[in-house]
């Protein structure tokens, strides 16, 4: 199994098959991050494709001083921001429509069945859908913080590099994002929190 470093060296010497090996494990992650930020499947598809095209184009400029995924997710984030700017919306209100298809029908979330669920919470597909909708109601920077930290599980340090903000800002952003998301979820899904009612 070749390391990422070896694959990147091969790509730089012109081996495009190595590029495929390098990006395959990241395709789904990049797509999921894009869905989380953009709240729209088609745009996320475009963003993910655009991200990998940029990675291929500029891989020669990757010097290896940061982790590859940090560089990759940073490009993903910037591509998503470009798309958001084009939409001319800095944040979304109730974003339900972005999870709808052209006819206005709710799109079925394409969930994988393989990932095991934690013991304490067993979410139905409907609950998953609603949690995503709740996240989509957050402002972009809070949404991104939740996506990178609580969905992708990235450490503060890497989030700080991806978003190009200090770790302190990352912490406070995650804190506020969680507090806002909690308020939305408590309102929409009180049953999930009933054990903690005073």
């Amino acid at each position, binding site marked *: 199994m070749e390391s990422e470093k070896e694959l990147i060296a091969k790509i*730089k010497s012109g081996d495009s098959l190595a590029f495929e090996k390098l990006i395959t494990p990241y395709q789904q992650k990049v797509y*999921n991050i894009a869905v989380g930020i953009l709240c729209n499947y088609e745009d996320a598809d475009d963003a993910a494709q655009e991200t990998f095209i940029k990675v291929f184009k500029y891989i020669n400029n990757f010097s290896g001083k940061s982790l590859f995924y940090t560089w990759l997710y*940073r490009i993903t984030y910037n591509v998503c921001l470009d798309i958001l700017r084009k939409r001319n919306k800095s944040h979304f209100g109730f974003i339900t429509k972005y999870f709808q298809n052209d006819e206005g029908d709710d799109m079925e979330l394409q969930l994988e069945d393989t990932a095991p669920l934690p013991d304490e919470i067993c979410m139905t597909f409907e609950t998953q859908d609603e949690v995503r909708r709740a996240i989509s109601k957050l402002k972009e920077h809070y949404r991104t913080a939740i996506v990178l930290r609580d969905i992708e599980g990235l450490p503060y340090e890497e989030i700080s590099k991806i978003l190009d903000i200090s770790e302190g800002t990352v912490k406070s952003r995650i804190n506020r994002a969680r507090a806002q998301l909690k308020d939305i979820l408590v309102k929409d899904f009180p049953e999930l929190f009933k054990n903690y009612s005073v």
Partner: protein
Amino acid sequence: MKCLEIREITSEFIDGGLDEKNSSLVKQHISECVECSKYYNEIKTTVSLCNSLKPLTLPENFSFRLNEKLKKSDPWYKNKKLYISAAGLAASIYLIAGPFYSLYMNINNMQEQPQPTDYPQIVQNEAAADNDKQPAEVLKKEEAPATASLKEKPPEQKKQEEPDRILPPKEQNSDYNENEATLPQDIMPEPEIQSAPQKPAPQATPSPQVSMKPEATMPPEATMPAVIIAAVTPAPVQESPPEAVLFADMDNSAETKTAAPAAKSSGGGGGAAMASLAKSEATVLYIKNKGDNSDFKEWLAKNTAPITETNSHGFSVISLSSEDYTKAAEIAQKYSLNYVITDSANADFSAISDLLTPGNYIIFTN
């Protein structure tokens, strides 16, 4: 600690990021305060809900569509290995035939041909972009119609290869080189670039990206003549600085001498680049050098406006001390800068080279 203070660090407490002292404080507080205990548990549930989200599957044919796009943007994608082997074979043939060919050319047209002694060196060092160009030039004279058709890109291909926000509106002139104009300058160059020669001659010294990209100018179905050796060799480690490209096509613009005569640039093209930027809608980060750059600053003061939170578009400049490159990256990101300028010939961007992203360029004006 008050409830509000506890709630400020509850999230970090859940992530296990607090030190022992603060961690104990939070534990103690939530065991005594009913409201904060509820808040803590609700945040914890929220985090668990997010942790439990299953990943979405990729859209249909994602990889296939990506491959198709990559092939379209770079016709040699997936065929590079094959072409590299072919190039190796061509290089071998050239190694044997080169001196004879050179001799032949020398006899026929001594005044117009490069020195024949160059050829063996070219073959031995395929990765050197400077040398790669020379056999192409030699053959171009012999096979002008054929090579001209190869160099001509279909219009739609040109459009796809043009990266977003790469260059300001370009000056049209007969010397304009399409390949150079669309170089991906929006990613930071490698540290080695910083020590590259300051006075490049773009026509004679192609930039590294040019040496990587000519493959895109060749239709995939075209047969590969020996002159394409340069196109398939890996990018040389030593690259020309970005100014070699940007300034090259600015040098002939009419504004060069009038708009920014004071701009400091040993290459003579900095003023032209500045003039071009002044007309574009670019946001510029200027990292100033410690040395005397009063004339350059004077020009900046006249032609630029200070950047603000709400004015992140247009030709604006932030000045920074040359040491503060991390801050530079932060600002570049915050304001979506299109250009980063330094007049420091020895600027070391290596610390932030992976952080600067598409859309941010470096221009050396010294």
